[in-house]
């Protein structure tokens, strides 16, 4: 049974290339720890909180699928009913959907990216979708402030300079309909707008401060039709969504959908009257419907248009995607910082989380917005600020850790200084290592006394 006629697909991805060296064969993207919990758990718990317990999780690659499946069955054994589907690597989001689309039966499909960390209720998107009878509804949230801007350090010097990948999003004046969307590389080019759409709405609002959060609600029939007909479509965001937006006013797609949905009801004069009466006052905020009678288009034409809607998350909601290393650090910082309600932990009076089994040496300070997981040991005179430290780490004396993420089973010897870095599992840092804005891949050994700055260190 599907809840409210919605099915949920979580696209958990595979070994993402832009997250190396953090991601490896042993650690698919979905299991990257954010505040010592796999990032996928944030999505799953969000869905669970919304009463959505029947999920399909799609993972790229057999091995990754096994890892993810194993973790889910362990962690959510009796709470969720999850089916993990493995798809070949490199098929893209659209390809992943294509391979499972035949299993979908509900009226609408909610597609969630597995790397989303948010507290926006998915029901809101679903309800907006239902309310408008849209073909696709997407969640937009304000673009995150990139870089550790509030840390006060010079962290991410070049990253802060680098322009954030802007999205250009066109909305109608009521901010309910999606009229244009250009992302990434397209932004560099001139923006081309469709005249017809512009004429239909009269006015378009162009926003660059919004980000597509990769949480979509699709009408199932339309989605399946597109997946069947357009074999070359690789990605939801780059192919399917632009296609739907482009064809809003002259859609082959929704006509098919309409035919299939209306085939049961025989058309008659009574039906027309009924529709007329029930749509009589329908003052859709969109000028779509209003403009059509003026241009004296027939009813048929009117039906051919379909709607792409947006749900714009409230400013107060947290919404971020873990799609880059910078984002990984940011999210880790936020989850134990400003968006602490997401972490699911209870904070101590000092506004940090120190597991009871963790051991601290004398004169060691753990500042606010820090996290220290079970079994970790800190030597004397250490200082930890705004950092996450994983399980069973052994940290020597006189170590400074600022704005960093340290995963599990890491050994850090005396006198190290780590700033703005990510240190993966089983890494060994020998004495007096100085790291600044570095990423250290799993199992790497940093020799003593070395200094690194803005480097990515990984095993060959």
């Amino acid at each position: 049974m599907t809840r409210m006629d919605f099915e949920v697909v979580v696209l958990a991805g595979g070994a993402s290339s832009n997250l190396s060296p953090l991601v490896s064969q042993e650690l698919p993207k979905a299991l990257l720890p954010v505040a010592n919990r796999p990032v996928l758990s944030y999505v799953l718990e969000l869905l669970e909180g919304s009463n959505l317990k029947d999920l399909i999780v799609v993972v790229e690659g057999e091995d990754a699928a096994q890892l993810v499946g194993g973790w889910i069955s362990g962690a959510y054994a009796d709470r969720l009913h999850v089916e993990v589907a493995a798809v070949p690597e490199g098929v893209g989001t659209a390809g992943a959907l294509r391979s499972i689309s035949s299993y979908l039966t509900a009226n609408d499909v909610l597609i969630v990216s597995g790397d989303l960390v948010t507290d926006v209720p998915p029901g809101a998107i679903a309800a907006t979708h239902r309310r408008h009878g849209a073909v696709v509804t997407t969640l937009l949230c304000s673009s995150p402030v990139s870089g550790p801007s509030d840390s006060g350090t010079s962290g991410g010097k070049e990253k802060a300079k680098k322009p954030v990948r802007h999205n250009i999003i066109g909305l109608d004046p009521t901010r309910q309909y999606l009229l244009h969307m250009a992302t990434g590389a397209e932004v560099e080019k001139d923006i081309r707008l469709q005249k017809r759409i512009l004429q239909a709405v009269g006015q378009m609002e162009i926003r660059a401060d919004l980000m597509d959060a990769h949480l979509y609600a699709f009408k199932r029939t339309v989605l399946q039709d597109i997946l069947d007909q357009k074999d070359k479509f690789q990605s939801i965001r780059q192919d399917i969504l632009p296609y739907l937006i482009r064809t809003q006013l002259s859609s082959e797609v929704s006509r098919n959908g309409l035919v299939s949905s209306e085939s049961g009801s025989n058309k008659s004069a009574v039906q027309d009257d009924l529709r007329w009466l029930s749509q009589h006052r329908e003052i859709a905020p969109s000028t779509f419907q209003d403009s059509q009678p003026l241009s004296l288009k027939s009813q048929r034409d009117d039906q051919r248009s379909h709607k792409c809607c947006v749900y714009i998350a409230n400013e107060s909601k947290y919404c971020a995607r873990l799609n880059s290393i910078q984002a990984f650090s940011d999210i880790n910082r936020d989850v134990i910082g400003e968006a602490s309600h997401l972490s699911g932990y209870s904070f101590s009076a000092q506004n940090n989380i120190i597991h009871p089994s963790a051991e601290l040496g004398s004169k060691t300070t753990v500042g606010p917005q820090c996290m220290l997981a079970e079994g970790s040991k800190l030597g004397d005179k250490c200082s930890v600020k705004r950092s996450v430290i994983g399980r069973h780490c052994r940290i020597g004396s006189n170590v400074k850790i600022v704005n960093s993420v340290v995963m599990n089973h890491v050994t850090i010897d005396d006198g190290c200084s780590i700033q703005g870095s990510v240190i993966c599992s089983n890494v060994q840092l020998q004495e007096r290592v100085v790291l600044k804005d570095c990423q250290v891949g799993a199992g790497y050994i940093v020799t003593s006394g070395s200094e690194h700055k803005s480097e990515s260190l990984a095993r060959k």
Partner: protein
Amino acid sequence: MEPRRPPRTVSDPKVRQVGFVTPAAAPPARTVSDTAAMPAAGASQELPLSGSSLSPVMIPPPRHDGLSARVTAPVPVPIAATALRLDNLQIRVGSYNQSEVLLGTPPMTSPSSRVEDAVSEFSDDVSASSLYGRTEPDKVGTAFPGRSGDLMPAKSVVAGGSIGGSHTPENPPTTSLVVKTLPGITEKKRGMLEKQHDEAAAPKPLKEKTTKAERRALQEAQRAAKSAAKEGGGADPTNTKKDKVVKPTPQKKDVPEVAASSGKKVDRPLEKERKKEVLPLRMQFDDKHKVEKVKQRAIVNQREAKSRVEFFQRLPQYVHGTQLQELEAKFFQLDAVHPSVYKVGLHHLSGKITGGNARCIAMLLAFKEAIKDYSTPPEKALVRDLNAKISGFVSFLIECRPLSISMGNAIKFLKNRIAKLPLSMSELDAKASIQSDIDRFINQKIIIADKVIVRHAFAKIRDGDVLLTYGLSSVVEMILVYAHEHKKKFRIVIVDSRPKHEGQILLRRLVAKGLNCTYTHINAISYIMHEVTRVFLGAASVLSNGTVYSRVGTACVAMVAKAYRVPVLICCEAYKFHERVQLDSICFNELGDPDAILKVPTHVESYLYGCMDNDNLQLLNLNYDATPSDYVSMIITDYGMLPPTSVPVIMREYDPQNLWI
């Protein structure tokens, strides 16, 4: 009938001709003296216009085999009666002051001290109805149910007779009988009634055959007597005497709903019964305990608006905009609500679907969907479980937006149908039967009803007319378009108001269809009314005292039209009628978004910007108002065209609950 006209009209200079005679047909120079000749002329003009198949006043027998039955049904009342009755009506309205004086006296001069009790015991709205109700002498029954208890039987007879044509010489016996059976009537009153009686044409013998209505009236009278007897073991003599009076009047037919509900308890209403009546009425939002309780049950925690206008504190008022978001966020938490019902609820809340008909249709179709997907849980009876389920849906819808009266009536119908399903029926059959019931309701009560109304109203549109309409009513739009398609030459004045500007939608569509329109706002109503010849208005509901409950502003339009002597025609499907009696817009209404009235389109910021949080500022945005029946010339329903006083008759005779067998 004719002879009594001249003195009346002489006594009041406000008399005018309204009986749907165009100015050309009834020149302004026409004086009262030739009214005698008028009805015939009016009738003859009326006839060809009313179409070959449909007569405007035709009241078919209470069969409901669809339109065809209605069309071919015999006409119980002469067609000419339209003109006649409408003339009478207006004249009597003219004599307002006189009759008011007459009628105001009885409670004072009545020998029975019990009258005062009756007055005090009646709930406010009933007794106050006299202030607003129509005051023609022989419609007293409907208008003054509570003023003097002793008059009750008489009134009901008289009022009931009105639709059947009590003014026409068809059934004067009832009138005469009334006069005789009234014990506590004042001399003045008696004289008046007698005069009426005398004026009426020669009496005919009583009808022997009792009609259904008569039998029902009898039954009601008996019931009333019984309850009275039960109530007062030591009932005072007047009471018992009264009962005796009530009983032997088998002719007491056509008791209107108002009179019936209140009349039953004329002899001192039981405390218990009164409570029963009062309690389940409506949620009072100024009662803190109840609000707490409701909040616990509520799906969404709604924040209530802070400052509310004092009179309207019992109506729910929430901070606008928060409701939708919270409801949407809980989309997946609502187990009990079917997706289609949920969608309709959101549409109601967001204002995507508005208007009585559209909301009702959307709701019924959603219920149909829900019933299609419904399966009876084990060890439960479909009848009970489904009804409980529907109740759940309804409370969800109420949370989205208060129900419209049309929806309330449809729900009542649906629940009744479900409850009447035989227990032995299989689930599949039961579901199919309910679904077809819903379809039939939509079809017959709304779609076909609208078509019939359009035909009726079409007869009232002539070449050269200037028609005024207010806001956006689906039926009125259909009428205008239909008349245009049938080559009538007329002009339309669309009156609109802030903040909804619904008239613009109508304007846009009519202009696109090539109709000649004038658009103005309600501020200019008094200016524009000069040129108007007819006012067509839609209604959310028509209440049993003839009050029209409609979009706020309707009362104003109707009042101005009345002042300018322009006939006001209310177009309303009979399924929207409600037995309630409402005298003002305060006791039952819906509050809109108070901020909506602040927005001035030309100014980015409101003039009131910054003082919104001031405790001294209270904003009121009402959605509906009540138009007293005085301002309404005629109500066009699917059962014909009626004066507003005849609404109870339609409600009784064509009550869907009794009709759908």
